[in-house]
């Protein structure tokens, strides 16, 4: 693969991070209005991995994710309006209002769906990969999963099967140290790294800081090359952090379930948006203007999409009759 972390690519990554960040912030800002009436898990703080990955994949590569899927959907190029409509329960939503925030898809860009049961999307992603392989395509399937999802037996079963069949799947594990309010301590063996576990199961794997686009870039590059060479799946673990509560628009570090220092470090010092923006701005001060103008464009896009969602109609209830495919 010939991709380099050029300025152009940095800006690409920055744009996606910024767009996700702003979208999520607008959602958070408006949630109190009680127009987005569904459980909503924000991705703020975890944007760097999907944004960087987007350089390496195209719309023929297929991605699937879980409850915290906004960033994955947007980074894959998912339609912003349709996502906001879905969260608002509107007819123009990507699932026609049937699924809400936890059920996003955009077939046009290879974003296959998200599911609301922890771990549930993993074997489905392996199935996607298997079909890609059987059709002899050069693409890959991407499975986003959290540090909690790997606790479900189905993760283990799916990974095992993907290895046996040499299925082209990239596992992207965003380890944000928490599953709802539960820390890794009560859920997984001390000092056991998730990527090492995956290696023990038999999968090629690696790990890095998921808030550092440069490190992410390197690891993903290696992983995608490996998968495309036909050797089978690759498991990447990224350390990252969610800034806000597990589900909903608020900050919740006042509940003290996460060490203050940890939160301070990840939220204040290692914010992925700040990191990449600073790098660009410092190294290429001439770009500041460009970034600012892009910000305005992006913010405009988001607010018009948001308005579109607010004024869109609710779906007609006759769509509920479609229980069986014909």
């Amino acid at each position, binding site marked *: 693969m010939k991709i380099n972390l050029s300025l152009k690519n940095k800006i690409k990554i920055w744009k996606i991070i910024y767009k996700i960040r702003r979208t999520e912030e607008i959602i958070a800002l408006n949630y109190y209005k009680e127009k987005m009436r569904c459980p909503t898990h924000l991705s703020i703080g975890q944007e760097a991995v999907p944004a960087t990955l987007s350089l390496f994949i195209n719309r023929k590569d297929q991605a699937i994710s879980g409850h915290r899927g906004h960033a994955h959907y947007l980074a894959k190029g998912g339609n912003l309006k349709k996502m906001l409509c879905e969260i608002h329960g509107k007819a123009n*939503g990507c699932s026609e209002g049937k699924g809400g925030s936890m059920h996003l898809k955009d077939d046009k860009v290879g974003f296959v769906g998200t599911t609301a049961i922890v771990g549930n999307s993993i074997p489905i992603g392996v199935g996607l990969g298997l079909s890609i392989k059987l059709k002899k395509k050069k693409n890959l399937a991407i499975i986003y999963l959290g540090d909690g999802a790997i606790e479900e037996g189905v993760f283990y079963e799916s990974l095992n099967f993907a290895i046996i069949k040499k299925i082209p799947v990239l596992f992207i594990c965003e380890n944000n140290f928490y599953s*709802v*309010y*539960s820390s890794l301590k009560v*859920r997984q063996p001390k000092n056991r790294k998730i990527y090492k576990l995956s290696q023990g199961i038999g999968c090629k794997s690696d790990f890095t800081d998921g808030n550092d686009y440069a490190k992410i870039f390197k690891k993903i590059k290696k992983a995608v090359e490996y998968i495309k060479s036909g050797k089978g799946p690759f498991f990447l673990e990224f350390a990252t952090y969610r800034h806000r509560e597990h*589900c909903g628009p608020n900050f919740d570090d006042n509940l003290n379930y996460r060490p203050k220092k940890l939160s301070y470090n990840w939220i204040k010092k290692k914010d992925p948006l700040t990191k990449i923006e600073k790098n660009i701005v410092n190294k290429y001060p001439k770009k500041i203007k460009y970034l600012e103008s892009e910000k305005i464009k992006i913010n405009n896009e988001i607010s018009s999409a948001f308005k579109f969602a607010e004024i869109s109609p*609710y779906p007609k209830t006759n769509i509920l009759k479609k229980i069986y495919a014909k």
Partner: protein
Amino acid sequence: MQNKRPITMAESINEAIQIAMKKDKSMLCYGLGTTDPKGIFGTTIGLEKKYGKDRVFDVPASENALTGVSVGLGINGIRSIVSHQRLDFFLLAMDQLVNSAAKWFFTYNKAIPITIRLIVGRGWGQGPTHAQNLHSWFAHIPGLKVVMPSNAYDAKGLLLSSIFDPNPVIFIENRWLHQSISNVPKKQYFINLGKSKKKLSGKKITIISSSYLTAEAINACKYLKKLNIDVDLIDLRTIAPLDWSNIKKSIKKTGSLLVLDSGHFSGSIASEIIYKATNECFEFLKKPPSKLCQPDIPEPSSFGLTKKFYITYKEIIGKVCKMLNCDKELIKAELNYKKEFLHDIPNSNFKGPF
């Protein structure tokens, strides 16, 4: 006489667990979120601190294994209460529930005292996999008991009975009831599993309900009363075992039967009750028994799509009036009095997002 002590169902569940933890010093309480700041909608708050980390603990997201663990504990006489924030998540554990827990006593003559709390979501956009009412699955499996409390008072007494029952008990809590309030004695009391509760006495029609639908039914009966329709309302409390004898008595008295069931229409427990009614009370039935169930459709997420999705007091009134051939205009007039709440939340205090 019950003293005036209004508390929520979340609180009464918490009290029941605490009483049990004190009575049985070896009993465990675990499940995802048990020890977290929100304590499973408030039901497990404070337990870890009082009863220690050995007995009250959070777990990995491994529903099937942790169900099996409770079977192993049960074999050695250790009771456990295991909580799941959504019934839907528990579908991962059907092997351990059906193949192990439900059959261990049958096969090995060894009691397995587990209480599995399943919370059923509803509204606020829960969507297809956060609001399933699959109680009829559990009632279909020999060896399981299935409890569906409808209020804070019952929840406490039923949960205590469930915990001290020597069998695996599925204890289903509708999320909309957690904030519902009733007068609950502080002391311990047990409500027998397998016994229903007559909520209202009447002669025109028998209505059978359970869990949250009992609240809607009570509401409906208030209006029906105004139309001179007095209802024999029975809250099932447990759907397995089923309190058939009380239902039968009522049907013989009224000759009319309406069963409310929050499960999907096809294969509902409502049909089982209606089968029994037809089979054993055929000559008493003045008209075909009927049922109101949720449709054979997954719950959609959108506020716009769920408006007519649930069974409310309105549908109940409509159905009863149709069964009893009442004056339609009169009903409409009565119903229009009622203020409109948002249909996807139980009351104005209810807040999402989870």
